[in-house]
């Protein structure tokens, strides 16, 4: 499924957040969106998922969702957004129980994604008993259970420590290579974007405009620090001035 963004602008009252964003997310790619804090990355993702109504412009989908997809456009959240009173399996089930799915099929899907992501033995654990990394694995499992056509990831690793982030990035990429689900990956972390993305969309500081969309033309298995260095340099040049100014603004 392609996702087409046509001339999206958005503001909260007098505050302009996004200015004239147009882009297409191609089927089967990961598009990373980076930019200084407050540049409207999360707002853009809210608009892409139908959770926010843009002031101007429109978003279109093109093509059919895969068979068995219950929720074509699906989020993974920065703060995991787990229901604290539900078990791991209950949280995954929450995404499924409002769709026409008999109990056996629901159970099968829950077991399948929990096994896929290494959570099977934690099925009855409560979120508060889990580390941040495990909680986000639940968030990922929940998203995969509905077989999304497009994944929207809102700073999925920002709440985790650096080591956990490293581990989850590898797991996420392995999972992604098996499914190749179209994805928009919002992050403020350059290295994360360079690791996961096919293309990186660089936004300016508020109001966010597209500065450039940079293709990461290095195969994922060859993305060593050394190979990515020139691209990293280029991306950093694009955002550093913006980030410096944004850093000194009142929020």
């Amino acid at each position, binding site marked *: 499924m392609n996702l087409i963004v046509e001339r999206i602008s958005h503001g909260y009252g007098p505050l302009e957040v996004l200015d004239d964003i147009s882009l297409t997310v191609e089927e089967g790619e990961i598009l990373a969106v980076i930019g200084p804090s407050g540049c409207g990355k999360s707002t853009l993702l809210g608009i892409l*998922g139908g*959770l926010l109504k843009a002031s101007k412009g429109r978003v279109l989908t093109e093509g059919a969702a895969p068979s068995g997809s219950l*929720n074509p*456009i*699906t*989020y993974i*959240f920065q*703060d995991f*957004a787990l*229901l*604290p*009173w*539900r078990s791991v399996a209950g949280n995954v089930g*929450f*995404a499924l129980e*409002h*769709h026409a799915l008999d109990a056996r099929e629901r159970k099968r899907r829950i077991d399948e994604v929990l096994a896929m992501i290494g959570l099977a033995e934690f099925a009855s654990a*409560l*979120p*508060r008993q889990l580390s941040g990394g495990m909680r986000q694995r639940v968030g990922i499992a929940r998203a995969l259970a*509905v077989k999304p056509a497009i994944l929207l990831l809102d700073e999925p690793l920002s709440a985790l420590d650096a080591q956990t982030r490293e581990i989850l990035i590898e797991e996420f990429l392995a999972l992604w290579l098996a499914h190749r689900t179209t994805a928009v990956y919002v992050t403020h972390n350059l290295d994360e974007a360079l690791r996961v993305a096919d293309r990186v969309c660089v936004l300016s500081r508020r109001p966010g405009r597209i500065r450039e969309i940079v293709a990461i033309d290095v195969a994922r298995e060859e993305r060593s620090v050394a190979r990515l260095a020139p691209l990293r340099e280029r991306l950093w040049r694009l955002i550093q001035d913006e980030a410096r100014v944004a850093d000194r603004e009142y929020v």
Partner: protein
Amino acid sequence: MSEPLRFRGGGFVVGPKPMSSCLAGLAIIAIWQGVVSLGLVSPVFLPSPAGIARALGDMALSGQLWRHLGASLQRIGLGFALGSAAGLALGLALGLLSHARAAGLPIVSALFPIPKIALLPLFILWFGIGEPSKVATIALGVFFPMAIATYSGVDQVPRTLIRMAQSFDVPTHAIVAKVILPGALPGILAGVRISASIALILVVAAEMIGAEFGIGAFILTAGNLMRTEDLLAGVCLLSILGLAVGFLVSLAERRLLAWR
């Protein structure tokens, strides 16, 4: 020259000391009993703990205790059920609907601080001196704190959980039932705790204004007859009742909020 490092941490940690708790309670009762037994105060003004215990025992044996306790519990139960159900409904509306909040919150805030017992004479005019006026007073007393507790509980449900549910196309009624209500439960139970103690205050006050049976009526009658042992036995009963209600709410919190 070497010197051991001076330790300067520690302190400021308050831990449980069950022995001290027991000893303090026993000491107060012992001193009280001693003062009365030594004849330092007249037992008419301050009956001894033993005398109060005896009065409680007599009440239980004669069946008086159950009659008065039953009357009070019935009023509390009915008033609390009516008031908290209505308060819960209003609190949900205040928490979820912009118009309800804009219209309702100023009114609720204005009426909340009125001591509801002040309205009992009006309720007696409306409903007569019997049960309905007492139940109405308790219901109204419970209604406002429940509404406010529910409203703030709903307000404290993280927005991101609601967004998450919406992102999975969960229908609105299911978001209310499965995200907002459980998320607001800590606030709601805090409201139950406050309202229960308000109900206890109001039932005693209402029974003192006009009732044949009930703990409040019993205490008032005992006072009029200078039967201070009975009077304080009634007060003890209220204390036990308050503790029991608090225990039940704590039990509910442990069971229902185990996820915290």
